Protein backbone atom coordinates (compact mmCIF):
# COMPACT_ATOMS: atom_id res chain seq x y z
CA UNK A 1 0.00 0.00 0.00
CA UNK A 2 1.34 3.40 -0.88
CA UNK A 3 1.74 5.85 2.02
CA UNK A 4 -1.11 8.32 2.40
CA UNK A 5 -0.65 11.63 0.64
CA UNK A 6 -0.17 14.22 3.34
CA UNK A 7 -0.44 17.35 1.25
CA UNK A 8 -2.27 17.64 -2.04
CA UNK A 9 -2.55 21.23 -3.14
CA UNK A 10 -3.50 22.51 -6.54
CA UNK A 11 -2.91 26.25 -6.51
CA UNK A 12 -3.67 28.81 -9.17
CA UNK A 13 -3.32 32.44 -8.29
CA UNK A 14 -3.05 35.37 -10.65
CA UNK A 15 -1.54 38.67 -9.60
CA UNK A 16 -2.24 41.61 -11.89
CA UNK A 17 0.54 43.89 -13.08
CA UNK A 18 0.95 46.80 -10.66
CA UNK A 19 3.34 49.64 -11.41
CA UNK A 20 6.71 48.22 -12.34
CA UNK A 21 5.90 44.62 -11.43
CA UNK A 22 4.59 42.43 -14.21
CA UNK A 23 1.52 40.22 -14.00
CA UNK A 24 2.30 36.89 -12.36
CA UNK A 25 0.60 33.54 -12.32
CA UNK A 26 1.21 30.84 -9.77
CA UNK A 27 0.14 27.48 -11.11
CA UNK A 28 1.43 24.48 -9.20
CA UNK A 29 0.32 21.10 -8.00
CA UNK A 30 2.09 20.27 -4.76
CA UNK A 31 1.81 16.65 -3.76
CA UNK A 32 3.77 15.33 -0.89
CA UNK A 33 3.84 12.32 1.32
CA UNK A 34 7.40 12.94 2.44
CA UNK A 35 8.47 14.50 5.71
CA UNK A 36 10.16 17.56 4.28
CA UNK A 37 9.19 19.08 0.95
CA UNK A 38 11.46 21.85 -0.25
CA UNK A 39 10.28 24.53 -2.64
CA UNK A 40 13.43 25.75 -4.29
CA UNK A 41 13.78 28.64 -6.70
CA UNK A 42 15.16 32.10 -7.28
CA UNK A 43 13.43 35.05 -5.64
CA UNK A 44 10.27 35.96 -7.49
CA UNK A 45 9.56 32.34 -8.46
CA UNK A 46 6.41 32.27 -6.34
CA UNK A 47 7.64 30.06 -3.50
CA UNK A 48 6.40 32.28 -0.70
CA UNK A 49 3.10 32.90 -2.45
CA UNK A 50 2.55 29.14 -2.61
CA UNK A 51 3.33 28.89 1.10
CA UNK A 52 0.93 31.74 1.91
CA UNK A 53 -1.81 30.01 -0.03
CA UNK A 54 -1.26 26.86 2.04
CA UNK A 55 -1.33 28.83 5.29
CA UNK A 56 -4.49 30.71 4.33
CA UNK A 57 -2.91 34.14 4.08
CA UNK A 58 -3.48 34.40 0.37
CA UNK A 59 -6.57 33.06 -1.39
CA UNK A 60 -5.97 31.13 -4.60
CA UNK A 61 -8.22 31.94 -7.58
CA UNK A 62 -8.66 28.28 -8.39
CA UNK A 63 -7.63 24.97 -6.93
CA UNK A 64 -7.99 22.82 -3.87
CA UNK A 65 -5.90 22.22 -0.76
CA UNK A 66 -6.08 18.94 1.09
CA UNK A 67 -3.92 18.27 4.14
CA UNK A 68 -4.17 14.84 5.73
CA UNK A 69 -7.57 14.37 4.07
CA UNK A 70 -8.89 17.60 5.50
CA UNK A 71 -10.15 20.17 3.02
CA UNK A 72 -8.58 23.59 3.64
CA UNK A 73 -9.62 25.23 0.44
CA UNK A 74 -11.72 24.39 -2.55
CA UNK A 75 -12.55 27.05 -5.12
CA UNK A 76 -15.34 24.95 -6.64
CA UNK A 77 -17.29 24.49 -3.41
CA UNK A 78 -16.13 27.77 -1.90
CA UNK A 79 -14.48 26.20 1.09
CA UNK A 80 -11.81 28.47 2.54
CA UNK A 81 -10.72 27.81 6.10
CA UNK A 82 -9.29 30.90 7.81
CA UNK A 83 -5.65 30.62 8.97
CA UNK A 84 -6.86 30.18 12.56
CA UNK A 85 -8.62 26.95 11.63
CA UNK A 86 -5.89 25.44 9.48
CA UNK A 87 -3.40 24.69 12.23
CA UNK A 88 -0.43 25.43 10.02
CA UNK A 89 2.69 26.33 11.95
CA UNK A 90 4.20 29.25 10.06
CA UNK A 91 7.77 30.36 10.55
CA UNK A 92 9.37 33.43 9.04
CA UNK A 93 13.03 33.91 8.36
CA UNK A 94 13.50 36.21 11.34
CA UNK A 95 11.24 34.00 13.48
CA UNK A 96 8.74 36.76 14.33
CA UNK A 97 8.77 36.08 18.05
CA UNK A 98 6.40 38.55 19.69
CA UNK A 99 8.85 41.23 20.85
CA UNK A 100 6.77 42.42 23.80
CA UNK A 101 6.53 38.95 25.37
CA UNK A 102 9.07 36.73 27.04
CA UNK A 103 9.83 33.30 25.59
CA UNK A 104 7.43 31.68 28.07
CA UNK A 105 4.72 34.20 27.23
CA UNK A 106 5.25 33.52 23.54
CA UNK A 107 4.66 29.82 24.14
CA UNK A 108 1.77 30.53 26.50
CA UNK A 109 0.10 32.63 23.86
CA UNK A 110 0.37 29.74 21.42
CA UNK A 111 -0.95 27.30 24.01
CA UNK A 112 -3.89 29.53 24.89
CA UNK A 113 -4.70 30.10 21.22
CA UNK A 114 -4.78 26.43 20.28
CA UNK A 115 -8.38 25.29 20.29
CA UNK A 116 -8.28 21.55 20.14
CA UNK A 117 -6.53 20.30 23.25
CA UNK A 118 -7.20 20.43 26.99
CA UNK A 119 -5.60 23.07 29.18
CA UNK A 120 -3.60 20.49 31.09
CA UNK A 121 -2.30 18.88 27.91
CA UNK A 122 -1.26 22.19 26.48
CA UNK A 123 0.52 23.16 29.65
CA UNK A 124 2.34 19.81 29.78
CA UNK A 125 3.32 20.18 26.14
CA UNK A 126 4.65 23.66 26.76
CA UNK A 127 6.85 22.50 29.61
CA UNK A 128 8.10 19.56 27.52
CA UNK A 129 8.96 21.80 24.59
CA UNK A 130 10.80 24.33 26.74
CA UNK A 131 12.96 21.43 27.93
CA UNK A 132 13.37 19.76 24.54
CA UNK A 133 14.54 22.97 22.89
CA UNK A 134 16.80 23.90 25.83
CA UNK A 135 14.82 27.00 26.63
CA UNK A 136 14.27 26.36 30.33
CA UNK A 137 16.80 28.97 31.48
CA UNK A 138 15.80 31.47 28.81
CA UNK A 139 12.06 31.33 29.36
CA UNK A 140 12.00 34.67 31.17
CA UNK A 141 13.87 36.54 28.46
CA UNK A 142 12.45 38.79 25.78
CA UNK A 143 13.37 38.01 22.15
CA UNK A 144 15.70 41.02 22.01
CA UNK A 145 17.83 39.35 24.70
CA UNK A 146 18.22 36.10 22.75
CA UNK A 147 20.93 35.07 20.31
CA UNK A 148 20.02 34.03 16.76
CA UNK A 149 20.14 30.33 17.59
CA UNK A 150 18.03 30.75 20.70
CA UNK A 151 15.43 32.65 18.70
CA UNK A 152 15.24 29.78 16.21
CA UNK A 153 14.64 27.28 18.98
CA UNK A 154 12.03 29.48 20.64
CA UNK A 155 10.18 30.01 17.35
CA UNK A 156 10.10 26.29 16.56
CA UNK A 157 9.00 25.43 20.10
CA UNK A 158 6.24 28.04 19.93
CA UNK A 159 5.06 26.58 16.65
CA UNK A 160 4.89 23.07 18.09
CA UNK A 161 2.93 24.05 21.20
CA UNK A 162 -0.21 24.32 19.10
CA UNK A 163 0.40 20.83 17.68
CA UNK A 164 0.21 21.91 14.03
CA UNK A 165 -0.90 19.62 11.20
CA UNK A 166 1.65 21.04 8.81
CA UNK A 167 4.73 23.22 9.25
CA UNK A 168 5.40 26.03 6.79
CA UNK A 169 8.91 27.46 6.93
CA UNK A 170 9.69 30.52 4.84
CA UNK A 171 13.44 30.78 4.26
CA UNK A 172 14.19 30.02 7.89
CA UNK A 173 17.97 30.29 7.47
CA UNK A 174 18.18 33.26 5.14
CA UNK A 175 20.89 35.63 6.23
CA UNK A 176 22.29 33.26 8.87
CA UNK A 177 25.96 32.33 8.99
CA UNK A 178 27.10 28.75 8.48
CA UNK A 179 27.23 28.00 12.21
CA UNK A 180 23.65 29.14 12.81
CA UNK A 181 22.48 27.20 9.78
CA UNK A 182 23.95 24.04 11.24
CA UNK A 183 22.26 24.83 14.54
CA UNK A 184 18.97 25.24 12.72
CA UNK A 185 19.29 21.87 10.99
CA UNK A 186 19.85 20.37 14.41
CA UNK A 187 16.71 21.88 15.91
CA UNK A 188 14.72 20.95 12.84
CA UNK A 189 15.81 17.42 13.55
CA UNK A 190 14.49 17.78 17.11
CA UNK A 191 11.29 19.21 15.66
CA UNK A 192 10.81 16.20 13.44
CA UNK A 193 11.30 13.96 16.42
CA UNK A 194 8.43 15.66 18.18
CA UNK A 195 5.94 16.20 15.41
CA UNK A 196 4.62 13.99 12.63
CA UNK A 197 3.47 17.04 10.69
CA UNK A 198 4.76 17.30 7.14
CA UNK A 199 7.06 20.26 6.56
CA UNK A 200 7.06 22.57 3.56
CA UNK A 201 10.24 24.61 3.48
CA UNK A 202 10.95 27.45 1.10
CA UNK A 203 14.56 28.22 0.27
CA UNK A 204 16.82 29.49 -2.46
CA UNK A 205 19.81 27.80 -0.87
CA UNK A 206 20.78 24.71 -2.85
CA UNK A 207 22.80 23.21 -0.02
CA UNK A 208 19.78 23.42 2.24
CA UNK A 209 17.56 21.97 -0.44
CA UNK A 210 19.92 19.00 -0.79
CA UNK A 211 20.32 18.53 2.89
CA UNK A 212 16.72 18.79 4.08
CA UNK A 213 14.52 18.02 1.11
CA UNK A 214 13.18 14.48 0.95
CA UNK A 215 10.95 15.72 -1.79
CA UNK A 216 12.01 18.67 -3.91
CA UNK A 217 10.02 21.03 -6.12
CA UNK A 218 12.04 23.32 -8.34
CA UNK A 219 10.14 26.51 -9.09
CA UNK A 220 10.53 29.01 -11.84
CA UNK A 221 8.15 31.79 -12.77
CA UNK A 222 5.23 30.43 -10.78
CA UNK A 223 5.53 26.84 -11.96
CA UNK A 224 7.20 23.62 -10.90
CA UNK A 225 9.81 22.93 -13.55
CA UNK A 226 10.58 19.64 -11.86
CA UNK A 227 9.48 17.83 -8.75
CA UNK A 228 10.17 14.49 -7.21
CA UNK A 229 12.45 12.87 -4.69
CA UNK A 230 15.72 14.64 -4.05
CA UNK A 231 17.73 11.83 -5.65
CA UNK A 232 15.61 11.83 -8.80
CA UNK A 233 15.74 15.56 -9.24
CA UNK A 234 19.45 15.92 -8.70
CA UNK A 235 20.54 12.85 -10.63
CA UNK A 236 18.31 13.61 -13.57
CA UNK A 237 17.46 17.30 -14.02
CA UNK A 238 14.50 17.50 -16.39
CA UNK A 239 15.91 20.07 -18.78
CA UNK A 240 19.01 22.08 -19.57
CA UNK A 241 17.26 25.09 -17.99
CA UNK A 242 16.72 23.21 -14.73
CA UNK A 243 20.31 21.96 -14.73
CA UNK A 244 21.68 25.41 -15.36
CA UNK A 245 19.44 26.93 -12.67
CA UNK A 246 20.73 24.40 -10.14
CA UNK A 247 24.21 25.55 -11.04
CA UNK A 248 26.09 22.39 -10.02
CA UNK A 249 26.37 20.83 -13.48
CA UNK A 250 28.59 21.35 -16.47
CA UNK A 251 26.52 21.59 -19.61
CA UNK A 252 28.53 20.98 -22.78
CA UNK A 253 26.99 21.08 -26.26
CA UNK A 254 26.73 17.49 -27.52
CA UNK A 255 25.48 15.49 -30.52
CA UNK A 256 24.58 11.81 -30.50
CA UNK A 257 27.14 10.11 -32.75
CA UNK A 258 26.24 6.45 -32.21
CA UNK A 259 23.67 4.34 -30.40
CA UNK A 260 24.03 0.63 -29.70
CA UNK A 261 21.08 -0.90 -27.82
CA UNK A 262 22.55 -4.42 -27.94
CA UNK A 263 25.64 -3.37 -25.99
CA UNK A 264 23.75 -0.72 -24.00
CA UNK A 265 26.08 2.05 -25.10
CA UNK A 266 25.98 5.39 -26.83
CA UNK A 267 28.62 7.72 -28.14
CA UNK A 268 28.40 11.49 -27.91
CA UNK A 269 30.32 14.06 -29.86
CA UNK A 270 31.26 16.70 -27.25
CA UNK A 271 33.40 19.69 -28.24
CA UNK A 272 35.40 17.59 -30.68
CA UNK A 273 35.90 14.67 -28.26
CA UNK A 274 34.09 11.34 -28.07
CA UNK A 275 32.28 10.42 -24.86
CA UNK A 276 30.85 6.96 -24.19
CA UNK A 277 27.85 6.36 -22.00
CA UNK A 278 24.87 4.11 -21.50
CA UNK A 279 22.29 3.63 -24.25
CA UNK A 280 19.89 6.57 -24.60
CA UNK A 281 16.32 5.36 -24.91
CA UNK A 282 14.05 7.22 -27.34
CA UNK A 283 16.87 9.24 -28.93
CA UNK A 284 18.11 9.23 -32.50
CA UNK A 285 21.57 9.54 -33.94
CA UNK A 286 22.19 13.21 -34.80
CA UNK A 287 20.06 14.56 -31.91
CA UNK A 288 21.52 17.79 -30.55
CA UNK A 289 21.62 18.63 -26.86
CA UNK A 290 23.90 18.83 -23.86
CA UNK A 291 26.12 16.52 -21.94
CA UNK A 292 25.13 17.17 -18.32
CA UNK A 293 27.67 16.14 -15.70
CA UNK A 294 27.69 17.09 -12.07
CA UNK A 295 30.83 19.15 -11.42
CA UNK A 296 31.82 16.87 -8.56
CA UNK A 297 31.60 13.75 -10.74
CA UNK A 298 34.18 14.83 -13.31
CA UNK A 299 37.92 15.28 -12.89
CA UNK A 300 40.23 17.88 -14.35
CA UNK A 301 43.60 16.66 -15.70
CA UNK A 302 46.51 18.39 -17.41
CA UNK A 303 46.36 18.00 -21.19
CA UNK A 304 49.48 15.82 -21.53
CA UNK A 305 50.04 12.28 -22.66
CA UNK A 306 47.59 10.12 -24.59
CA UNK A 307 43.94 11.08 -24.48
CA UNK A 308 41.93 8.29 -22.88
CA UNK A 309 38.27 7.63 -23.76
CA UNK A 310 35.75 10.03 -22.16
CA UNK A 311 38.27 12.83 -21.82
CA UNK A 312 37.18 16.15 -23.28
CA UNK A 313 39.80 18.74 -24.12
CA UNK A 314 38.68 22.24 -23.14
CA UNK A 315 40.31 25.64 -23.19
CA UNK A 316 40.94 27.39 -19.85
CA UNK A 317 39.24 30.80 -19.68
CA UNK A 318 40.23 31.86 -16.19
CA UNK A 319 40.91 30.87 -12.60
CA UNK A 320 39.08 31.99 -9.47
CA UNK A 321 39.99 31.32 -5.85
CA UNK A 322 37.05 29.74 -4.00
CA UNK A 323 36.29 28.46 -0.52
CA UNK A 324 36.67 24.82 -1.61
CA UNK A 325 39.91 25.30 -3.57
CA UNK A 326 40.51 26.82 -6.98
CA UNK A 327 37.74 27.17 -9.52
CA UNK A 328 38.94 26.70 -13.09
CA UNK A 329 36.67 28.33 -15.66
CA UNK A 330 36.49 26.54 -19.00
CA UNK A 331 35.03 27.21 -22.44
CA UNK A 332 31.30 26.57 -23.03
CA UNK A 333 30.59 27.98 -19.57
CA UNK A 334 31.94 24.84 -17.86
CA UNK A 335 33.86 24.98 -14.60
CA UNK A 336 35.54 22.65 -12.14
CA UNK A 337 36.82 23.16 -8.63
CA UNK A 338 40.13 21.50 -7.79
CA UNK A 339 42.20 21.25 -4.64
CA UNK A 340 45.46 23.18 -4.28
CA UNK A 341 47.43 19.94 -4.79
CA UNK A 342 45.64 19.23 -8.06
CA UNK A 343 45.95 22.81 -9.22
CA UNK A 344 49.75 22.63 -9.05
CA UNK A 345 49.66 20.34 -12.11
CA UNK A 346 47.24 22.59 -14.00
CA UNK A 347 48.86 25.96 -13.38
CA UNK A 348 49.63 27.86 -16.57
CA UNK A 349 48.01 25.27 -18.89
CA UNK A 350 46.04 26.67 -21.84
CA UNK A 351 43.97 23.52 -22.27
CA UNK A 352 42.92 20.79 -19.84
CA UNK A 353 41.20 17.41 -20.02
CA UNK A 354 37.81 16.95 -18.38
CA UNK A 355 37.51 13.29 -17.43
CA UNK A 356 33.88 12.11 -17.38
CA UNK A 357 33.18 8.55 -16.18
CA UNK A 358 30.69 6.67 -18.38
CA UNK A 359 28.35 6.23 -15.42
CA UNK A 360 28.01 10.01 -15.06
CA UNK A 361 27.11 10.66 -18.69
CA UNK A 362 23.65 12.18 -18.93
CA UNK A 363 22.24 13.60 -22.17
CA UNK A 364 19.73 16.45 -22.17
CA UNK A 365 17.97 17.26 -25.43
CA UNK A 366 17.75 20.90 -26.53
Amino acid at each position, binding site marked *: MSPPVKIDARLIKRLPAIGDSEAFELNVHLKSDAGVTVLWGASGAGKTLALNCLGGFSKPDEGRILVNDELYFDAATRVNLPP*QARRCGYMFQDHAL*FPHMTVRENLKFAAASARHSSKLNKHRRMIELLEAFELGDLAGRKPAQLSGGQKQRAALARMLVSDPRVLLLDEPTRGLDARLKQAFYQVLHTTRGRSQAPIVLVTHDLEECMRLGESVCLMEDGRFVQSGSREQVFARPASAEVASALGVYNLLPAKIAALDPSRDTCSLDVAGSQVQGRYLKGRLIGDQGFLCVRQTESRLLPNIGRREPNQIVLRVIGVLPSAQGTKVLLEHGAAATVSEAEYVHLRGEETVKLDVPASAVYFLAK
Partner: protein
Amino acid sequence: MPAASIDWFPLWLSLRVASIATVFIVTLGTFVSYLLSHKNFRGKEALDSLITLPLVLPPTVLGYYLLVLLGRSSWFGHLYEEVFGEPLVFTWQAAVLAAIFHSAPIYIKGARTVLEGVDYRFEWVAHSLGASEWRTFLRITLPLAWRGLSSLASLCFARSLGDFGITMMVAGNIPGQTQTLSVAIFDAVESGNGKAARMLVLVISVTALILLWTAARISRPTVRASHTE
Protein backbone atom coordinates in the same frame (compact mmCIF):
# COMPACT_ATOMS: atom_id res chain seq x y z
CA MET B 1 -6.49 92.94 39.93
CA PRO B 2 -6.06 90.00 42.31
CA ALA B 3 -5.63 86.53 40.84
CA ALA B 4 -8.77 85.37 42.61
CA SER B 5 -10.87 87.41 40.19
CA ILE B 6 -9.90 85.13 37.30
CA ASP B 7 -12.62 82.57 36.70
CA TRP B 8 -10.99 79.16 36.41
CA PHE B 9 -14.18 77.38 35.42
CA PRO B 10 -13.31 77.46 31.67
CA LEU B 11 -10.06 75.59 32.37
CA TRP B 12 -11.80 72.80 34.28
CA LEU B 13 -14.54 72.60 31.68
CA SER B 14 -12.01 72.39 28.89
CA LEU B 15 -10.10 69.65 30.68
CA ARG B 16 -13.31 67.70 31.28
CA VAL B 17 -14.49 68.15 27.68
CA ALA B 18 -11.11 67.15 26.28
CA SER B 19 -10.86 64.07 28.54
CA ILE B 20 -14.28 62.75 27.64
CA ALA B 21 -13.76 63.51 23.97
CA THR B 22 -10.40 61.72 24.00
CA VAL B 23 -11.92 58.61 25.60
CA PHE B 24 -14.59 58.52 22.89
CA ILE B 25 -12.13 59.17 20.09
CA VAL B 26 -9.64 56.55 21.25
CA THR B 27 -12.29 53.86 21.70
CA LEU B 28 -14.23 54.43 18.50
CA GLY B 29 -11.32 55.79 16.50
CA THR B 30 -9.12 52.76 17.17
CA PHE B 31 -11.90 50.50 15.95
CA VAL B 32 -12.44 52.57 12.79
CA SER B 33 -8.73 52.81 12.08
CA TYR B 34 -8.38 49.03 12.53
CA LEU B 35 -11.07 48.57 9.88
CA LEU B 36 -9.29 51.03 7.60
CA SER B 37 -5.87 49.46 8.12
CA HIS B 38 -6.77 45.74 8.17
CA LYS B 39 -9.93 45.25 6.15
CA ASN B 40 -10.82 45.63 2.54
CA PHE B 41 -14.34 46.80 1.92
CA ARG B 42 -16.20 48.78 -0.62
CA GLY B 43 -16.06 52.52 0.02
CA LYS B 44 -13.01 52.29 2.27
CA GLU B 45 -11.22 55.27 0.78
CA ALA B 46 -14.49 57.21 0.63
CA LEU B 47 -14.88 56.65 4.38
CA ASP B 48 -11.29 57.76 4.89
CA SER B 49 -11.99 60.96 2.95
CA LEU B 50 -15.16 61.59 4.95
CA ILE B 51 -13.19 61.24 8.16
CA THR B 52 -10.51 63.63 6.90
CA LEU B 53 -13.05 66.23 5.80
CA PRO B 54 -13.25 68.04 9.20
CA LEU B 55 -9.52 68.78 8.89
CA VAL B 56 -10.06 70.95 5.83
CA LEU B 57 -13.54 72.39 6.29
CA PRO B 58 -13.91 75.72 8.14
CA PRO B 59 -15.05 75.22 11.75
CA THR B 60 -18.16 77.26 11.06
CA VAL B 61 -19.21 74.80 8.36
CA LEU B 62 -18.71 71.87 10.74
CA GLY B 63 -20.59 73.74 13.45
CA TYR B 64 -23.42 74.31 11.02
CA TYR B 65 -23.56 70.62 10.12
CA LEU B 66 -23.61 69.68 13.78
CA LEU B 67 -26.38 72.17 14.52
CA VAL B 68 -28.43 70.62 11.73
CA LEU B 69 -27.65 67.08 12.91
CA LEU B 70 -28.11 67.65 16.63
CA GLY B 71 -30.62 70.51 16.73
CA ARG B 72 -33.96 70.08 18.40
CA SER B 73 -35.70 69.49 15.07
CA SER B 74 -33.34 66.66 14.00
CA TRP B 75 -34.20 63.06 14.91
CA PHE B 76 -31.05 62.70 16.96
CA GLY B 77 -31.67 65.93 18.83
CA HIS B 78 -35.23 64.85 19.39
CA LEU B 79 -34.19 61.44 20.69
CA TYR B 80 -31.61 63.00 22.99
CA GLU B 81 -34.19 65.36 24.41
CA GLU B 82 -36.61 62.47 24.95
CA VAL B 83 -34.01 60.47 26.84
CA PHE B 84 -32.23 63.18 28.86
CA GLY B 85 -35.05 65.67 29.16
CA GLU B 86 -33.11 68.62 27.78
CA PRO B 87 -31.84 69.62 24.35
CA LEU B 88 -28.26 68.76 23.41
CA VAL B 89 -27.21 72.02 21.75
CA PHE B 90 -25.78 74.75 23.93
CA THR B 91 -24.76 72.34 26.68
CA TRP B 92 -21.27 71.27 27.68
CA GLN B 93 -22.05 67.83 26.17
CA ALA B 94 -22.33 69.57 22.81
CA ALA B 95 -18.86 70.97 23.44
CA VAL B 96 -17.67 67.36 23.80
CA LEU B 97 -19.14 66.52 20.40
CA ALA B 98 -17.51 69.62 18.95
CA ALA B 99 -14.16 68.50 20.34
CA ILE B 100 -14.66 65.00 18.94
CA PHE B 101 -15.27 66.37 15.45
CA HIS B 102 -12.33 68.70 15.83
CA SER B 103 -9.81 66.02 16.90
CA ALA B 104 -10.99 62.62 15.69
CA PRO B 105 -9.65 63.01 12.12
CA ILE B 106 -6.11 63.49 13.44
CA TYR B 107 -6.38 60.42 15.66
CA ILE B 108 -7.96 58.16 13.05
CA LYS B 109 -5.59 59.18 10.26
CA GLY B 110 -2.61 58.68 12.54
CA ALA B 111 -3.87 55.44 14.06
CA ARG B 112 -4.44 53.95 10.61
CA THR B 113 -0.79 54.59 9.80
CA VAL B 114 0.34 53.25 13.17
CA LEU B 115 -1.73 50.06 12.84
CA GLU B 116 -0.59 49.55 9.26
CA GLY B 117 2.94 49.89 10.53
CA VAL B 118 2.64 46.91 12.88
CA ASP B 119 4.58 44.11 11.23
CA TYR B 120 1.95 41.86 9.61
CA ARG B 121 4.08 38.79 10.31
CA PHE B 122 3.34 38.96 14.04
CA GLU B 123 -0.37 38.93 13.27
CA TRP B 124 0.06 36.10 10.76
CA VAL B 125 1.96 34.01 13.25
CA ALA B 126 -0.73 34.64 15.88
CA HIS B 127 -3.43 33.54 13.42
CA SER B 128 -1.46 30.47 12.41
CA LEU B 129 -1.19 29.54 16.10
CA GLY B 130 -4.98 29.57 16.21
CA ALA B 131 -5.58 32.98 17.81
CA SER B 132 -8.81 34.69 16.81
CA GLU B 133 -8.76 38.10 15.20
CA TRP B 134 -9.96 39.76 18.41
CA ARG B 135 -7.36 38.00 20.53
CA THR B 136 -4.63 38.85 18.03
CA PHE B 137 -5.70 42.48 18.10
CA LEU B 138 -5.75 42.68 21.89
CA ARG B 139 -2.60 40.71 22.62
CA ILE B 140 -0.38 41.42 19.61
CA THR B 141 -1.46 44.39 17.48
CA LEU B 142 -2.48 46.73 20.29
CA PRO B 143 0.60 46.23 22.50
CA LEU B 144 2.85 46.71 19.48
CA ALA B 145 0.99 49.85 18.42
CA TRP B 146 0.72 51.15 21.98
CA ARG B 147 3.40 53.81 21.71
CA GLY B 148 2.02 55.34 18.56
CA LEU B 149 -1.57 55.25 19.76
CA SER B 150 -0.84 56.83 23.14
CA SER B 151 1.17 59.54 21.51
CA LEU B 152 -1.77 60.22 19.19
CA ALA B 153 -4.16 60.20 22.13
CA SER B 154 -2.22 62.94 23.91
CA LEU B 155 -2.05 64.92 20.68
CA CYS B 156 -5.78 64.44 20.39
CA PHE B 157 -6.32 65.64 23.96
CA ALA B 158 -4.24 68.75 23.33
CA ARG B 159 -6.18 69.53 20.20
CA SER B 160 -9.51 68.96 21.96
CA LEU B 161 -8.52 71.58 24.53
CA GLY B 162 -8.23 74.21 21.87
CA ASP B 163 -11.34 74.02 19.73
CA PHE B 164 -13.04 77.35 19.25
CA GLY B 165 -15.14 77.54 16.09
CA ILE B 166 -17.27 74.43 16.36
CA THR B 167 -17.73 74.89 20.10
CA MET B 168 -18.97 78.43 19.60
CA MET B 169 -21.50 77.24 17.03
CA VAL B 170 -22.98 74.27 18.93
CA ALA B 171 -22.23 74.96 22.62
CA GLY B 172 -22.24 78.73 22.62
CA ASN B 173 -20.62 80.99 25.17
CA ILE B 174 -22.55 80.62 28.42
CA PRO B 175 -20.22 81.53 31.31
CA GLY B 176 -20.20 78.86 33.97
CA GLN B 177 -21.91 76.37 31.67
CA THR B 178 -20.45 76.02 28.19
CA GLN B 179 -17.64 78.56 28.19
CA THR B 180 -14.48 76.60 27.44
CA LEU B 181 -10.97 77.98 27.72
CA SER B 182 -10.57 79.15 24.14
CA VAL B 183 -14.02 80.74 24.17
CA ALA B 184 -13.22 82.42 27.49
CA ILE B 185 -10.04 83.90 26.02
CA PHE B 186 -12.05 85.31 23.12
CA ASP B 187 -14.53 86.71 25.63
CA ALA B 188 -11.82 88.23 27.81
CA VAL B 189 -10.17 89.95 24.86
CA GLU B 190 -13.50 91.23 23.58
CA SER B 191 -14.39 92.70 26.96
CA GLY B 192 -10.93 94.24 27.43
CA ASN B 193 -9.92 91.98 30.36
CA GLY B 194 -6.29 91.78 29.31
CA LYS B 195 -5.01 90.17 32.49
CA ALA B 196 -7.46 87.25 32.37
CA ALA B 197 -6.74 86.77 28.65
CA ARG B 198 -2.98 86.69 29.28
CA MET B 199 -3.35 84.25 32.14
CA LEU B 200 -5.58 81.86 30.22
CA VAL B 201 -3.39 82.07 27.11
CA LEU B 202 -0.37 81.21 29.24
CA VAL B 203 -2.14 78.28 30.88
CA ILE B 204 -3.35 76.75 27.60
CA SER B 205 0.03 77.27 25.91
CA VAL B 206 1.94 75.58 28.73
CA THR B 207 -0.58 72.71 28.93
CA ALA B 208 -0.39 72.15 25.17
CA LEU B 209 3.40 72.27 25.23
CA ILE B 210 3.56 69.71 28.04
CA LEU B 211 1.16 67.43 26.17
CA LEU B 212 3.14 67.67 22.94
CA TRP B 213 6.36 66.97 24.79
CA THR B 214 4.71 63.92 26.41
CA ALA B 215 3.50 62.72 23.00
CA ALA B 216 7.00 63.03 21.59
CA ARG B 217 8.48 61.20 24.61
CA ILE B 218 6.03 58.33 24.28
CA SER B 219 6.46 57.87 20.55
CA ARG B 220 10.26 57.79 20.76
CA PRO B 221 11.49 54.25 21.30
CA THR B 222 14.11 53.78 23.99
CA VAL B 223 17.71 53.81 22.83
CA ARG B 224 18.18 50.18 23.75
CA ALA B 225 15.17 49.00 21.82
CA SER B 226 16.20 50.85 18.68
CA HIS B 227 19.60 49.21 18.78
CA THR B 228 18.51 45.66 19.38
CA GLU B 229 15.22 45.36 17.52
